[in-house]
């Protein structure tokens, strides 16, 4: 038990370090942030303590400790017979008849214990399965640690983004079609929502499915999450013959037919702001771009000129008409592949753990022997019952213990 407590103390110590020192950053981050101690941090692996060898060793030792502890508890439980164990004993709290009857009334009527008559002795029993509480708790912790580790190691994550109307093809041939995406609902409230269609290599498909934060789309072992979003510019280009094409544009994209004349996109900004010093570009915003503006360079005949354009504006360069369209929002998706059984096993484990704690703390087994002289509560447990019986014995039956 002491060894287990020491191990738990070590888990706390490592966790504190892992929460104080930001984890999983590039080495240069630590060099800049901790100029005097970065070498120590990197050498001891304090930049990734939760995957360090010493943390894993602590967890393995904890598991071994839990296995041993569970086995010992199981053996003890198999041997124990609470009713039989107390039958051969005598009361240790001596009471007159009236108080003994009060104790029995409490056990029978209020606590609703099961009564076993054994000659001149009576045994009151309740929640006998509660003896398994600590065993179930230890087993639950053990299983939780094991399946937690599996649940952290097994999933394969892939972050990607895709413009509406386009598809992502995964390595195994799974296709994720982004049919639409919006970042606000009809009332203007932020609500990141995509409609996607996932088609597996074997032809199974989700059909058009709503994907939003907290509502991933699942099919087989694949799960697609709404992770982030971005805003991209869109430009339509028309040539002299009337042929039209449309492009999504990002910073440094150069739209040109001959590689010399065209427009170079500098950036797309959420809007303009009038200040005392003049007009300023808004650099970032939350939600939809309210008044989007394109900053771009016109490259023509070896010259270049910086310009601003709003959606709907057109400009002619090198025989082509460039029309700036309203920006389009697109989703950033996280694609997770993980066997479903890992999560199910983990869920069952934590349910076992929670049930174990519930039984241990709230359904403690009650075994009370009543003989002709008084009562016996082996080990003085549960403490609540001990205090209640003591209160009755002391004539303070109204005490709520």
């Amino acid at each position: 038990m002491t060894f287990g407590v020491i191990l738990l103390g070590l888990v706390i110590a490592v966790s504190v370090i892992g929460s104080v020192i930001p984890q999983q950053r590039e080495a240069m981050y630590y060099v800049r942030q901790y100029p005097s101690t970065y070498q120590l941090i990197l050498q001891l692996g304090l930049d990734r303590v939760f995957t360090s060898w010493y943390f894993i060793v602590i967890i393995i030792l904890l598991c071994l400790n839990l296995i041993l502890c569970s086995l010992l508890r199981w053996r003890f439980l198999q041997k124990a017979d609470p009713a039989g164990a107390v039958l051969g004993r005598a009361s240790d709290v001596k009471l007159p008849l009236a108080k003994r009857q009060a104790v029995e009334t409490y056990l029978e009527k209020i606590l609703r214990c099961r009564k076993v008559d054994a000659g001149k002795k009576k045994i009151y029993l309740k929640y006998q399965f509660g003896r398994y509480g600590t065993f179930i708790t230890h087993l639950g912790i053990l299983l939780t640690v094991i399946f937690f580790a599996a649940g952290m190691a097994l999933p394969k994550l892939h972050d990607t983004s895709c413009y509406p109307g386009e598809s992502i093809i995964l390595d195994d041939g799974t296709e994720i079609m982004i049919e639409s995406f919006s970042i606000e609902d009809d009332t203007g409230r932020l609500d990141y929502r995509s409609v996607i269609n996932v088609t597996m290599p074997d032809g199974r498909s989700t059909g058009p499915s709503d994907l939003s934060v907290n509502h991933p789309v699942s099919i087989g072992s694949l799960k697609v999450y709404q992770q982030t979003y971005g805003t991209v510019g869109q430009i339509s280009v028309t040539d002299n013959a009337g042929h039209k094409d449309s492009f999504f544009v990002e910073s440094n994209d150069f739209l040109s037919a001959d590689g010399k004349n065209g427009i170079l996109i500098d950036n797309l900004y959420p809007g303009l702001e009038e200040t005392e010093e003049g007009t300023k570009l808004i650099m970032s915003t939350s939600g939809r771009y309210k008044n989007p503006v394109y900053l771009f360079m016109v490259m023509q005949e070896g010259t270049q000129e910086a310009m601003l354009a709003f959606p709907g504006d057109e400009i002619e360069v090198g025989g082509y008409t460039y029309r700036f369209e309203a920006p389009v929002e697109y989703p950033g998706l996280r694609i997770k592949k993980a066997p479903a059984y890992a999560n199910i096993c983990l869920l069952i484990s934590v349910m076992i753990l929670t049930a174990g704690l519930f039984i241990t703390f709230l359904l403690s087994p009650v075994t009370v022997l009543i003989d002709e002289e008084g009562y016996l509560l082996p080990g003085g447990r549960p403490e609540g019952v001990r205090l209640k019986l003591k209160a009755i014995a002391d004539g303070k039956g109204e005490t709520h213990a």
Partner: protein
Amino acid sequence: MLDILFFAGLGLYFASMLLRFFGQVWQKDTVSTLSWRIFMAGFAAQTAYIIMRGLEAGRIPMANQFEFAVMFSWGIAVILVVLHYRLNLNWITTIAIIMTWGIYLYAALLPRQINELMPALRSVWFVSHIGSAAFSYAAFMLAGASGIRYLLIHGKNPADERLEEIDYFIYRLIAIGLLLLTVTIVIGAIWAEEAWSSFWTWDPKEVWALITWILYAIGLHLRLGQKKKGVFMAWYAVIAVPVVLFTFIGVNTLMSGLHSYGAAVKMLL
């Protein structure tokens, strides 16, 4: 109207705390009784505030640090009221009123505006995850309050018959707090898997919730297995309180992570 209710609650709790203090110094039961009535008035004002804020926001008000602090303080008050009326426990009242007021005062220092619920928080798990956390912290705080009371009484008279009862309630409060914290962590993990694709990210809030869980689990383990009770357990309950407060306040103010709802809107969606 909302502000009036909020500050009425804060003021009433403060008045109750002062009266309680004087009632104990002067040994006047009438003053202590009046203190309790004023506390109940403060509790009613706080309850009304939570309900009205919830109606105005169109959701359960637990979406940011301020709202959680109000709920946390209210949780302490609820448990105190239950202990007072159902179990007639008076030894915990003074320190519990101070704690209720202290957390409520902390809330008063935070911005009170009602914000729209961000997409990441629009989940069926929202109420159960945060609600169980608030009541779990409240139970731990009251265990700490009981620990202080135990140590004060023990300092005066180690044979005081109330000590056994207080010791038992420290155990019960920690056990209930641990159970609720387990529920908080489990529900949080399920929610995180739905929202962030991983049930555990070693985010500072998660790590400190785990530290809190382990800390109290060790305490209960020592009590149940090695019969560490009395003064030891009282000190343990008191010393663990700063850890709970750090998990609640320190992590949100000193560390950034996925639970920093005030700042990292875009990261979280």
